[in-house]
């Protein structure tokens, strides 16, 4: 069996991200890390490949900066890595992304399961995962918090999903695309040997022509990035005993009409 997991490099979660005077998004000298949601997807791919007796491949769509995430993935224990890059491809456009991602999965040919992290923090969305499933014509299993049963030979899967109203258990068929939630596993840290091995890895790059796909016209474009509006940060400190502070706060909240 063969599991594919998608990842990307994003600014470190603790980084202060701002828009500079030229309108570019910057994060100072903070490094790039694996998109935080993807760590769970990468761990699950390793676990599934092991229990299913198969292999796990990690894929990134976009420029060379994503090699950081791919090398981290290899160091964690993913078997193979590949990157898709093409001049015609805008990896921030979800339809472009999904078209390329589905093309890469189809090129591999033998894939049973595709795993994504819940969302990508740079683009701030999860739409590319659902769209990859649709471009493949596969079942989509979103917000998976546990894989309860999976039989790669029979092509059946049973998972627990975490939704706003509670936990749902569904059965479905493989091949499938899934997004995984944070509580599905405990991601491992790369081993020292893994890091050394990954540092030397040559990561193949596939073009759209090699995937045999064309990207569609873009339906939306990012016009500009903006900094968040400055919050009125005048914090009014409430003094006194806890009872006095509580009474003063309730008074203020009634005035604000938020109760």
């Amino acid at each position, binding site marked *: 069996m063969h599991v594919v997991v998608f990842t990307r490099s994003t600014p470190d979660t603790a980084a202060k991200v701002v828009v500079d005077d030229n309108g570019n998004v910057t994060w100072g000298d903070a490094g790039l890390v694996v998109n935080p949601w993807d760590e769970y997807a990468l761990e699950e791919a390793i676990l599934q490949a092991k229990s299913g007796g198969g292999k796990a491949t990690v894929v990134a769509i976009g420029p060379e900066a994503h090699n950081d995430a791919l090398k981290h993935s290899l160091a964690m224990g993913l078997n193979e890595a590949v990157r898709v890059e093409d001049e015609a491809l805008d990896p921030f456009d979800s339809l472009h992304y999904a078209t390329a991602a589905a093309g890469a999965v189809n090129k591999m040919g033998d894939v049973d399961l595709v795993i994504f992290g819940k969302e990508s923090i740079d683009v701030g969305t999860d739409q590319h995962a659902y769209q990859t499933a649709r471009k493949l014509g596969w079942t989509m299993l979103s917000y998976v918090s546990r894989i309860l049963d999976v039989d790669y030979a029979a092509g059946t899967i049973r998972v627990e999903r975490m939704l706003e109203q509670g936990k749902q258990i569904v059965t479905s068929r493989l091949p499938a695309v899934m997004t995984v*939630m944070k509580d599905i596993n405990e991601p491992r840290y790369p081993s020292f040997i893994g890091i050394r091995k990954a540092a030397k890895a040559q990561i193949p790059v596939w073009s759209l022509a090699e995937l045999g796909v064309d990207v569609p016209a873009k339906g939306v474009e990012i016009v500009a*990035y903006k900094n968040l509006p400055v919050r009125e940060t005048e*914090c009014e400190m409430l003094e006194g005993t806890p009872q006095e502070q509580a009474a003063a706060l309730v008074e203020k909240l009634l005035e604000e009409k938020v109760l």
Partner: protein
Amino acid sequence: MSAVFAWVETFKGAANPTSWEALGAGRTLADGLGVPLVALILGENAEAVAKQAGEYGADKAIVCEDATLHGFRLEPYAALLTKLVQDNSPAVVIAVGTSRGRELLAASAADTDSGMITEALELSLDGNKVVATRPAYAGKVLSEVRSSGEGTLFLTIRGRAFKPNELNSGASIDIEKVDAVLSEDDIATKIESFEEETGTVNLTDAAIIVSGGRGMANNPKPAPDGVEDATVWKAQDGFANVIQPLADVLGAAVGASRAAVDAGFIPYAHQVGQTGKVVSPDLYIACGISGAIQHQAGMRSSKVIVAINKDPEAPIFKLARYGIVGDLYEVVPALTEELKKRLGK
């Protein structure tokens, strides 16, 4: 028919509390584009919900009550939405960006090679192009995104970012019934069970959220003998017996910082922040939360923020409208008592 289609999400035959916001934002776009606003309602009880949609400002409703649509599943919902889009070429399909709204619209956008904007916080029109402001980089910056004005734009809005239309009781609505596209045999995914969390308020719908952080560990109540981890027990006890009573008196949802979740104080479903839920309630009360940048990313758009923290230097005070420097285990019970008195509960 050019139109704005708005998906009114339902759960067990009733509209979600935020669903009418899709009609609110949709109404403005439909008026600006000079086209009708059409509510799409799928699943059990759709016709009754359609009548409500009329009262919330829809001009027309398209409904399907087929048994395959009882309980949301992506395959039958997306197949039907895609067909409706192909048949009617609406200018915009809008929905609230819930877990289901995001995946349904993304799927049909892919099926029809259409553009999509998610998590819109503000919307305007530039001719027939939709311009949206949405968060990027985990909410640390904003991006302005514009549609091409050609084909259909799929658009999800952040819950609680737009207001519903004024309720116009008794307004009539033209209802069109359509057939499902897939039959049960075509659908791979079967729902085996659904364990609902009853009695808790959904974080993303909540008007008020009370959250606890690392400071929950400072519970003065001694842990009983034989407890494996006294710190975890104290914090869990604090969430159950200090935070929850305040949430109950306010009708609020309970949130938590990543530090509290990672330490095992409370399940992940309560996490607010960069790798948790993004919320924008009217009132956010942060108890024992320092306010790391990752937490701020999830709650900074709250209307009024209250911070209760022992450390006067905690970054959360820079974001807060009202601050109380003190022990949450003294302040929160006092606040609960005061609210009971003032709100007459």
